[in-house]
């Protein structure tokens, strides 16, 4: 699958947006403007960017506690995302959800999720909707290596396989679940081998090279759209930051982090590729960077200027009022 200039630049722009969003969010967190917890996606950008490039607004995703990247790649509004982090009324969840529950149902994002593995069966349900409607919509479920050891993973993959549902399981193996290295949590080296147990294809992918994530996701999504059923993609990737802000990271070395950052950074690799194949120049990419910076700052401004979340209106915020709207 050769990637054209527009697609390449868009992949780069999305990755860059995610990276800068996270840096800015971390800054706001450091300034005590963000409450609670945020989980940084930096390092994993090629996964969300490569996958979502194939998704339409009417396709669904389920995301994780580390969900900002998935959300941005699914074309979310940056202002509404920042506003949510800042607990503002204009946020995606009106300040009710925060980082771990950002959803954008208008774009098919069924939500970040604070329960590891919790989104996997939900994506299967969305895929069931697609199938019942005889549409060619698909659902993507993102989850981590840690999520792949939850019972929900097992049950969901099996359900999708037996009913040949249009769902793509994207396991982002970033080598750790909080502090637990994959080598301690798995007795297999390649998580993708688990797919065989459900009778579906499983593919191990270099998650740092957006060409690879784009290509593998493209195939799996096309397969799902054709009604040929689910695929498990295991994207080998890495998170640069601690699991949480202030994580002492006793479980890994600085060298390890540096090696990934310098040799396998998805943005650097993408720049090399794009410039190397003359799809665009360094200057073109710098212009994209500048555009991204501006969009991020505009998002932050929108969020900062917005009013605080309004008081809860109960019970209607908890219970949908009245009878079915239909």
């Amino acid at each position: 699958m050769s990637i054209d200039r527009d697609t390449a630049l868009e992949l780069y722009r999305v990755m860059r947006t995610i990276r800068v969003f996270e840096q800015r969010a971390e800054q706001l967190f450091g300034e005590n403007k963000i409450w609670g917890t945020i989980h940084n996606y930096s390092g994993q950008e090629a996964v969300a960017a490569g996958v979502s490039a194939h998704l339409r607004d009417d396709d669904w995703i389920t995301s994780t506690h580390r969900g900002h990247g998935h959300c941005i790649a699914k074309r979310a509004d940056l202002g509404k995302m920042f506003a949510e982090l800042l607990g503002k009324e204009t946020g995606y969840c009106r300040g009710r959800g925060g980082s771990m529950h950002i959803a954008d149902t208008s774009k098919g994002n069924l939500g970040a999720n604070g329960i590891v593995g919790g989104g996997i069966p939900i994506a299967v349900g969305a895929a069931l909707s697609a199938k019942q409607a005889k549409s060619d919509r698909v659902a993507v479920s993102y989850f981590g290596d840690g999520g792949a050891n939850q019972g929900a993973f097992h049950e969901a993959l099996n359900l999708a396989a037996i009913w040949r549902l249009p769902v793509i399981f994207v396991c982002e193996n970033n080598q750790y679940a909080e502090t637990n290295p994959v080598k301690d949590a798995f007795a297999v080296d390649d998580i993708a081998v688990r797919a065989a147990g459900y009778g579906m294809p499983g593919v191990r992918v270099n998650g740092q090279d957006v060409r690879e994530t784009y290509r593998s996701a493209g195939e799996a999504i096309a397969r799902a759209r054709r009604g040929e059923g689910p695929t498990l993609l295991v994207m080998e990737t890495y998170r640069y930051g601690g699991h949480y802000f202030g994580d002492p990271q006793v479980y890994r070395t600085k060298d390890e982090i540096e090696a990934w950052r310098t040799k396998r950074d998805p943005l650097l690799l993408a720049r090399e590729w794009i410039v190397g194949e003359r799809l665009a120049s360094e200057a073109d990419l710098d212009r994209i960077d500048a555009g991204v910076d501006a969009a991020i700052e505009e998002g932050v401004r929108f969020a900062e200027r917005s009013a605080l979340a309004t008081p809860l209106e109960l019970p209607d915020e908890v219970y949908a009022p009245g009878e079915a709207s239909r």
Partner: protein
Amino acid sequence: MTVQARAPAATREMFYAEALGDALRQEMRRDPNVIVFGEDIAEHGGAFQVTAGLLKEFGKERIRNTPISENGIVGMAVGAALTGLRPVVELMYVDFMGLAMDQVVNQAAQNRFMFGGQARVPLVLRTQGGSGRGNAAQHSKSLEAWVAHVAGLKVVMPSTPADAKGLLAAAIRDDNPVIFIEHKLLYRTKGEVPTAEHVVPLGVADVKRAGKDLTIVSWSREAVFAVEAAAKLAEQGIDAEVIDVRTLVPLDREAILRSVRKSHRLLVVHEAIKRGGYGAEIAAMVAEEAFDDLDAPPKRLAGLETPIPYAQHLEKSVVPQVDDIVRAAKELAG
């Protein structure tokens, strides 16, 4: 739509299980987005034959047998509900709720709120509970208190065939996740059920018997027992009012308070163990809201604090029987 038909529409005697199937059929005909899935519900018609015949009418796309994966099934239902379907899931025994509780509580119940109103989760989780069939401790529990304590869930527990039909229809039309708990020993009870469209709104208690000496509040099979007990009490000169709350959430507090203001005595009866049971909520609510109307302490009669034993005589000894209700009522009102 007939809401609590006044001039009684045409009815037919049905089993409770049959009436539930009737509601499913009614709603599936009305709305193509209603789909049903669960273990052994297709060809076999479900462990209690509630879905018998549905496969034939609606086909295998809408009546789906699942593997034994309770968490996955309920999670799938959440995803389906978020994306336009109206799934009705059968969880074979409420005792298996512990396997699905995460999806029920962290996802279904909370999605609407957490997403700032962006979502609705029109999902019905049908299940059944209670003792009395010798199924022992892992197939006989009463767990309504768990789900009633969760913001975002509604909880329904019908005691008659007519309510089974009407409440299930209402649950399916509701845009919120509804936990619909049947009772294994009610499936083969009979009653008149409206044959036409029948919907009983959630949140409206049913006064099964008017009376002035005490108020007995109950639900599910114990509501049936309470009616029987009231008849025995009447013979002994005690005039009990019996209220079947039918839905625990929303709870028809007014119906209960109105009755207690008249009778001045409250007895709540349920099968679940007493400690932390939903009877505590009702007794505490009445004590709080109608303290000055009470002439006696609000009483609870409920299951003993034990898992359900297997042997028949032991099983009966741990949940309130008709005579236990009679005895408790006499103590309270006598």
